[in-house]
């Protein structure tokens, strides 16, 4: 889709950030540029800004999270906003009805930005339809995790100076990963060549239609890659259902020195965390300060979330904004 580009600074013309799919290269660059400006600020002794002063941000997490929630919380606070964390256990409530009830209740408190994570794909969009504030998708089921893709892109762009023309291999449980989907959308939009590497049982049907190349042989998939993105394999998928065992998975799909050698000599390694050392990644590789960007990804996460909160807050008063995407 082509996004209108109104004059002035505002180049992210949407009320919510629900996903990467459908965003234009300009819109993505705009968010990344804004994020970039916060990287330096976050390294100073005085990290406090005030662009969110008076704004209320609610982190509404229906699924357990430590790093994403903390990252959003820190981002909001560094821009002077008031941040409240709400964790809702999905097991104790009936889904659907309660999701909307919760949204209506919170809406009545007039928050400015809701950051929502939910274990069901599409749940964040459903909630966004029921509230007047801006909504950031903090991860919905196996669908999207847009701020993760943005922070990954920022990390790559800072290291390599660009996104287009690079080759990125995303490895692991593609089928169940929202991180994979958001990254595929973002990178293919930016002209990056994307490969996915997984056993056939962890590749979604017709993944080629996303504009990626699929590999079931990791060495072939990594050959000539600039960036290797590892995904977390959930424990419940390891034992005999999607893959037979951890040791077999690691043997064929775990990133170790040997398989890493198939990629470019200066290939960089990323992981959205938390890592399963010895399942999808070898400690030796994960802790290699020359190759691993894993700590840098966490740092970029705060900057990206500051930018996203700020941009959505800036957009808030404008009633002419469209809802999608």
């Amino acid at each position, binding site marked *: 889709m082509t996004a209108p580009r109104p004059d002035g600074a505002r180049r992210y013309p949407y009320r919510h950030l629900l996903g990467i799919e459908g965003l234009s290269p300009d819109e993505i660059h705009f968010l990344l540029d804004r994020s970039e400006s916060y990287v330096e600020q976050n390294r100073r002794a005085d990290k406090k800004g005030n662009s969110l002063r008076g704004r209320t941000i609610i982190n509404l997490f229906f699924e357990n999270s430590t790093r994403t929630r903390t990252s959003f919380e820190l981002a909001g606070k560094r821009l002077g906003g008031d941040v409240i964390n709400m964790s809702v256990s999905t097991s104790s409530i009936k889904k659907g009805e309660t999701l909307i009830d919760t949204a209506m209740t919170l809406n009545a408190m007039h928050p400015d930005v809701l950051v929502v994570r939910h274990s069901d794909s599409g749940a964040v969009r459903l909630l966004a339809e029921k509230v007047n504030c801006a909504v950031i998708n903090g991860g919905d089921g196996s669908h999207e995790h847009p701020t993760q893709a943005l922070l990954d892109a920022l990390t790559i762009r800072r290291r390599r100076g660009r996104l287009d023309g690079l080759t990125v291999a995303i490895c692991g449980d593609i089928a169940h990963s929202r991180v994979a989907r958001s990254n595929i959308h973002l990178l293919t939009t930016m002209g990056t060549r994307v490969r996915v590497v997984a*056993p*056939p*049982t962890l590749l979604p049907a017709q993944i080629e239609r996303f504009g990626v190349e699929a590999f*079931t*042989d990791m060495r072939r998939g990594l050959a000539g890659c600039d960036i290797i993105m590892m995904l977390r394999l959930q424990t419940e998928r390891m*034992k*005999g*259902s*999607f*893959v*037979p*065992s951890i*040791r*077999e998975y690691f*043997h*064929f799909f775990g990133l170790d020195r040997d398989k890493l050698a198939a990629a470019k000599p200066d290939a960089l390694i990323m992981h959205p965390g938390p890592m399963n050392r010895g399942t999808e990644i070898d400690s030796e590789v994960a802790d290699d300060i020359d190759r691993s960007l894993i700590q840098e990804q966490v740092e970029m996460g705060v900057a990206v979330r500051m930018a996203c909160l700020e941009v959505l807050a800036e957009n808030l008063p404008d009633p002419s904004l469209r809802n999608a995407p």
Partner: protein
Amino acid sequence: MSAALSGRRVAYLNVRLLDPATGLDMPGQILTEGGRILDIGAKLFEPTLFKDDMPDGAEGIDCKGLCLAPGLVDMRVQLREPGEEHMENMASASQAAAAGGVTTMVALPNTQPVIDDVSLIEFVARRAREVGITRIRTYAALTKGLQGKELTELGLLTEAGALGFTDGTQAIVNAVTLRRALSYGRMFDRMVIQHPEEPSLARDGVMNEGEIAARLGLSGIPACAEVMMIERDLRLVELTGGRYHVAHISTSESVAAIRRAKRQGLAVTCDTAPHYFALNETAVGDYRTFAKLSPPLRDEMDRRAIVDGLADGTIDAIASDHAPHDQESKRLPFAQAAFGIIGLETLLPLTLELVHNGQMTLLHALGALSHRPARMLGLDCGRLAKGAPADFILFDPDRPGRIDVTRMRSKSKNSPFDGRPVQGSVWRTVMGGRTVFDADAPKQARGSRGD
């Protein structure tokens, strides 16, 4: 220095060469060096010249015009080792195999313990080396403990040497399990082998459903229980692109379903066993437990369809389906007796019946016993070619005789074919360049190490 280069040379002279891989059928000679075939052809050397040219210690054997064909590759054998060695073990099965012309056996994983782990694949390989009479390879269990739930480590097992994956005599019932197996198995290019039977229809059945079962008062297994499972599985093959093999098909409808799938271009293969073309359900007769099989012996129309399926190539291979059982497992009321019969030593003569009846050519029949299973399993053997393993049999396809279980090498004697007149017998079996069976000198049939 490899054994092949330093090995002794043996020339088999005056043979009828039969190579189903190339269609070769002509008089000629074959020369082995160590464990490999060095040369093959109509006239490798003039007999006199040959005598002069051969290095010291070389041997020339006059085979008197006998047929020489690749050693048989039996893709479905139960060895009972580890766990039930009182019924069979690798040594006794190997001797039976060698006497039957079988140079490669592929074992089912339904032993005790189940072959579902890398260490057990290695155990089979080690025992095969120790016995040293035939090549013994194995399938691995598709699911842990043959429980039908969790996949085994297909990749690591493939690397250890598993030739395929199967739950043995149990069907893979759960559609999701089979789907994932076919899908995941694509990475390793190994077959998933199904025992085709819808278990809920077969649950209490002990023989084919029909008039005979009704008269005997035995509960029947309907013929459709087989094709139902095959047709379901074929949808999953279409969905996943996996490699699928149906073991021991026994019904007309199964042949038709596989014929359609092959026309459709699916990666589907199948085998049958001699009893499904040599016998029908009437063999159960008066509650003969030696005719109790799984799948059960079917009616005459099904038997004929199996013959037709072999003749037109729909059925790729013939396997013995060797299932040794001791007397305690068979000397029981029919419903309580075990399923299965021995078959290593009757595989060739029963298959040759099809040739003598004009239903298959000799080359085609030999192909179903050697070249085609070898190719499906990705094995180097099953062909007569320079550089191929020197695994072959010398046999007379016409020599008359009777099947006699008392002379069989297998530890168990559960064969319904005892006393059956047959034509064709093995004179000599050569595995890896060594004679592992010689009909003229039975005492030399014991294999020895050191090839």
